[in-house]
């Protein structure tokens, strides 16, 4: 025992310990330089700034509570203290049409992105071997010079086509900027990658309704909601908007309470709310939807013509779907014929009724057919573009709009990078982590490792950015200019925009500004790049993009351009007054030719060796895993499992009993493509032949809160795809499970499963 | 201080010595208060061990208890009113719980009064030098006269010895 510990021991604990800690940090602070405040705030008085949430693609409006505080910041490469406005709390923007003042859990935790202790504080240049995590700090000038020199030399060698830009779907001017940059440079369009990317549903909506878009649900006016596997109240699509509608559907209308039916094989947080929870075999939801339509048609509850184009996509629709009578599909779906009939009658009788599909049904080899089947059901129920049904958010008349073409996510990512006409010389990565979020069979890491130069704009060292040679850290969303065009969640056109809510903490720069800087540096050599991006800054680009809105009837009415611009910022964006739908895409030959047969999915692996269908699902805490580095999210109990800081495999208690697996036992999950280990969670709401696992944990490299925690279910998935879109069929893997013999780390917040435990002994 | 005393092995002879001394009181010119008895254990069944039986100690204890209880109740209800905060939907001065504390303080008052009364009544602590003989620790009983009048010493010695004293001693401070 050294003297210090002895002193600590002999003292009455806390007081002395606290004092010494204070002294230590106090000294540290005393040695720091103090920057002159760049803004003046009254201490203790909060001001509210509008901003936008970037935790998912919904694009909710934010109000940020900013208060004066003292922060350790980096300025000109030097750390020092500054009195500055600090974001203290995020709230929903009450005016914003998507979220109307509300905010979800992950949105709140956006604050911890800005203040995350693991954020990259300055540009980094790799010094050690790839993946070693050894970097040295470089200045912005050096970093941007390196990137532009690289790109310049590649271009001068005539290999501009060998530069790839990897990102997620950017539904804002950043998307436009990247698109223009790449086009002018001569590189192929950006490769978009998201694990839960909904490409199948967009494709289906295009085929059925002519809209390449996710739908918006008018739940508030619906009397009957049937959802096929969609976790729309927790993780999927515009969650806050859907929750708002759901609340109104349930208790917002005097004397009228809508019914909600959920069809799935593993009870999701959304399914837990259902008045009627219907178990159907994963992948057979399309059959069930078509069978519901068959009952309506055969009992003349709905006219066949109502389905119009959407019905035409389904084989046998005009013949009355006689192959899909409830009796014929009951064995395939696992839903009793009588129940199908009753549900069909209820749906037809309680219109406006709406059907929702997402998640597992679409992540199958027959995903597109399932989606088209549900679309046809919606059309038959007359739910398209009608109150209480589905809508498609119109696009605002901005000067430039990000492309809405098929997000090229589909197909194996590595395949696309490898199959690029010319070998990739340089890869730019922004807001995408494919090394984490792709099956092991795709060999993404190995592919990326072969690329000579990788630059990342990431704010964190994750599995992908650790491979980068150069890291150019982005601002957080609270520190940068933000804008967004919501794809769904509103029935009127919305274009959100907001100025930075606070000054940057670290020596970071916004990606769009870096890209503009690179463009200008390339300019002299590569004129098209500079002329395609004529703006000095992203702010300027935004202003010019929003300028045309001044002439449209919308939430902001201002004559002068400057007034308009400042008001739009103050309001957090512009939203249209009308709610008329956008023009449909014209029916193409390809569209009208597509007719699918709704059938059973094909699963990977033999049913005898791999008896369980393995369903990964978006986690309520981490989405696709990108929020796993936020301590609030790690400690928020998952509402169904009540787990914190954990990963788990959901197993039906009866199955578990058969395999002598107890709660918390470490279980090995084996597919044909790999194995993983995770503790078992006995979940009463999962089918006996299904095991499920949340996506999000299992990061090898993602800061102190996420690294080395749990297992990543994506890694053991098969590479099967939905054939038409090429989207990964992430629910098509079969697995086997067995008890390892040791206990796993499963941290649960909740105790008993039942309100009145029948078995008093059960914990 | 001076004393003449005898040490007795058994209570009967001690009692005899006592009686002899009392008989001689008037003749030798001393009074009851000057007769000294010291023992190593109480002899309450014998007359010599029954001096000064009158005491108000039980009454003192009871009174102490009463005072403790009243003070306790006053103090507790005073503090409750002095900083009146609502808790659990109860009144400010809660009678039932205060009863418990009043009871405890009653008992405390009684106990402390008993102890104090004992100390005062038994004249303790008193570390001054007094007539004493460690022999009482061996079961001997000391009977004697303090400050015997001049000239009575011999008679006292005789009487003490005649009662069967093991030893007759003189104590001079």
């Amino acid at each position, binding site marked *: 025992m050294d003297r210090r510990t002895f002193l600590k021991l002999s003292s009455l604990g806390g007081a002395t310990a606290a004092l010494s800690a204070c002294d230590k940090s106090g000294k540290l602070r005393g040695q720091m330089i103090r920057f002159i405040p760049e803004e003046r705030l009254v201490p203790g008085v909060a001001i509210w700034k509008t901003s936008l949430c970037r935790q998912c693609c919904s694009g909710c409006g934010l109000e940020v509570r900013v208060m004066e505080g003292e922060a350790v910041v980096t300025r000109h490469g030097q750390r020092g203290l500054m009195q500055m406005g600090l*974001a203290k709390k995020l709230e929903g923007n009450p005016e914003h049409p998507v979220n109307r003042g509300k905010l979800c859990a992950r949105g709140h935790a956006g604050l911890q992105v800005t203040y995350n202790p693991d954020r990259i504080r300055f540009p980094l240049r790799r010094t050690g071997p790839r993946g070693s995590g050894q970097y040295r700090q470089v200045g912005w000038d050096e970093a941007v010079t390196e990137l532009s020199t690289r790109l310049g030399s590649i271009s001068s060698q005539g290999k501009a086509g060998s530069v790839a830009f990897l990102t997620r779907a950017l539904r804002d001017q950043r998307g436009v900027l990247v698109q223009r940059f790449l086009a002018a440079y001569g590189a192929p369009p950006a490769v978009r990658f998201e694990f839960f990317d909904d490409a199948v549903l967009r494709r289906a909506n295009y085929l059925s309704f002519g809209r390449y878009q996710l739908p918006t649900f008018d739940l508030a006016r619906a009397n009957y909601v049937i959802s096929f596997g969609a976790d729309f109240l927790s993780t999927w699509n515009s969650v806050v908007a859907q929750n708002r509608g759901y609340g109104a559907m349930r208790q917002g209308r005097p004397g009228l309470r809508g019914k909600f039916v959920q069809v799935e094989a593993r009870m999701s947080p959304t399914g837990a709310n259902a008045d009627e929870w219907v178990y159907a075999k994963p992948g057979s939801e399309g059959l069930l939807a078509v069978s519901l339509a068959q009952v309506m048609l055969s009992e003349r509850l709905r006219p066949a013509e109502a389905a119009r184009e959407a019905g035409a996509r389904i084989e046998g629709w005009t013949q009355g779907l006689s192959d899909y009578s409830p009796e014929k599909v009951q064995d395939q779906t696992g839903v009793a014929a009588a129940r199908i009939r009753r549900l069909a009658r209820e749906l037809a009788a309680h219109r406006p009724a709406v059907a929702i599909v997402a998640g597992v049904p679409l992540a199958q080899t027959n995903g597109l057919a399932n989606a088209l089947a549900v679309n046809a059901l919606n059309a038959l129920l007359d739910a398209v573009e009608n109150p209480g049904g589905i809508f498609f958010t119109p696009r605002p008349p901005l000067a430039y709009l990000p492309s809405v073409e098929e997000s090229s996510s589909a197909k194996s990512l590595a395949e696309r990078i490898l199959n690029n006409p010319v070998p990739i010389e340089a890869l730019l990565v922004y807001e995408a982590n494919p090394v984490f979020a792709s099956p092991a069979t795709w060999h993404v890491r190995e592919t990326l490792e072969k690329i000579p130069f990788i630059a990342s704009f990431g704010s964190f060292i994750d599995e992908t950015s650790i491979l980068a040679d150069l890291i150019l850290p982005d601002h957080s969303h609270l520190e940068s200019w933000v804008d967004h065009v919501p794809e769904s969640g509103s029935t009127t056109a919305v274009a959100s925009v907001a100025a930075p809510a606070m000054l940057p903490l670290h020596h970071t720069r916004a990606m769009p500004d870096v890209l503009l800087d690179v463009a200008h540096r390339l300019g002299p050599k590569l004129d098209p790049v500079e002329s395609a991006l004529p703006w000095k800054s992203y702010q300027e680009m935004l202003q010019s993009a929003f300028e045309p809105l001044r002439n449209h009837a919308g939430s902001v009415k201002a004559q002068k351009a400057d007034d308009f611009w400042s008001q739009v910022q103050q309001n957090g964006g512009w939203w249209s007054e009308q709610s008329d739908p956008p023009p449909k895409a014209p029916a193409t030959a390809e569209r009208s030719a597509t007719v699918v047969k709704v059938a059973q999915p094909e699963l990977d692996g033999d049913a005898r060796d791999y008896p369980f269908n393995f369903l990964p699902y978006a986690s309520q805490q981490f989405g696709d895993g990108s929020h796993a580095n936020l301590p609030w*999210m*790690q400690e928020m*109990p998952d*509402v169904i499992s009540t787990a914190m*800081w954990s990963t788990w495999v959901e197993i039906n208690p009866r199955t578990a009993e058969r395999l002598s697996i107890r709660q918390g036992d470490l279980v090995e999950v084996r597919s044909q493509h790999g194995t993983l280990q995770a503790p078992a969670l006995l979940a009463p709401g*999962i089918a006996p032949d299904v095991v499920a696992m949340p996506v999000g944990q299992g990061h090898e490299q993602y800061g102190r809160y996420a690294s080395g925690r749990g297992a990543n279910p994506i890694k053991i998935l098969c590479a099967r795809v939905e054939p038409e879109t090429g989207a990964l069929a992430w629910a098509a893997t079969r697995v086997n499970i067995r008890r390892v013999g040791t206990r796993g780390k499963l941290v649960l917040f909740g105790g008993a499963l039942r309100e009145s435990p029948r078995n008093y002994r059960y914990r | 201080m001076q004393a003449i005393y005898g040490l007795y092995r058994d209570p009967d002879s001690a009692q005899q010595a006592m009686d002899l001394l009392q008989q001689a009181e008037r003749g030798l010119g001393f009074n009851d208060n000057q007769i000294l008895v010291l023992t190593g254990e109480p002899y309450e069944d014998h007359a010599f061990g029954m001096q000064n039986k009158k005491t108000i100690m039980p009454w003192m204890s009871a009174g102490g208890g009463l005072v403790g209880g009243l003070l306790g109740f006053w103090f507790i209800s005073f503090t409750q009113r002095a900083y009146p*905060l609502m808790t659990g*939907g109860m009144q400010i001065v809660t009678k039932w719980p205060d009863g418990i504390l009043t009871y405890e303080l009653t008992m405390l008052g009684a106990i402390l009064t008993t102890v104090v009364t004992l100390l005062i009544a038994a004249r303790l602590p008193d570390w001054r030098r007094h007539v004493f003989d460690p022999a009482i620790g061996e079961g001997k009983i000391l009977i004697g006269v303090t400050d015997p009048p001049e000239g009575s010493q011999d008679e006292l010695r005789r009487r003490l010895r005649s009662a069967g004293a093991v030893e007759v001693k003189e104590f001079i401070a």
Partner: protein
Amino acid sequence: MAPAKEQNQKAFRLKRRNWGMAVDEDRCTGCEACVVACHAENNIATVGEEQAARGRAMHWIRIERYYEGTFPDIKVKYQPVLCQQCDNAPCEAVCPTYASYHNAEGLNAQIYNRCIGTRYCANACPYEDRYFNFVNPAWDEPLNLQLNPDVSVRSVGIMEKCTFCIQRIRAAEINAEKEKRQLKDGEFNPACVQSCPTEALVFGDLDDPESRVSRLAKSNRAAKLLPDLGTKPKVTYLRRGSWYDEQNT
């Protein structure tokens, strides 16, 4: 001058309020927005995996999940549980130092400075909605910058719990007094209520017959949590409706 000022102050008096909440289980979807909003507003410490595994996680509001039935005929009930701000609070009377007491607005207040950590209140609370700082809370820099300056940070050995965001109540009251007006229903909300996307949580003055919360408290669906204990909770639960009731089937 001075008497006039005095008179002015006398002339205006904020009506006494009786804060309460209604929780609509029919609307609650278990999205947990309230849980994180509460963490952000009230500087609740994140205890980390090890402490969480030892049962020391703190969530002033939690969403209880109860299964009913067995697969495939299974249902789940979500029940957000926060401090019920009981009028006859079992936690208050047991505190030896008045750290837990009933304030004039009927709130079950917790005075952190007075708490010495007997943890008696937490045992007495039948709703188990008191959380204890078993270890000294720490925020990895710069996460400390997220702390709300209006809410004190608790140290080790202190019991904490839902306050109905008393800092927001006070701020609103001060504002209203300054502007010499009564508080409006829904003028401000605790963090959980403000962010609840389905509006399952409603906050307001139970003594105001026109407030949303007092009207909801009179609903047919209204119930209290563990009503037989006689704790007089100020949180009303609106039980889940049944679609079948309304369909008469």
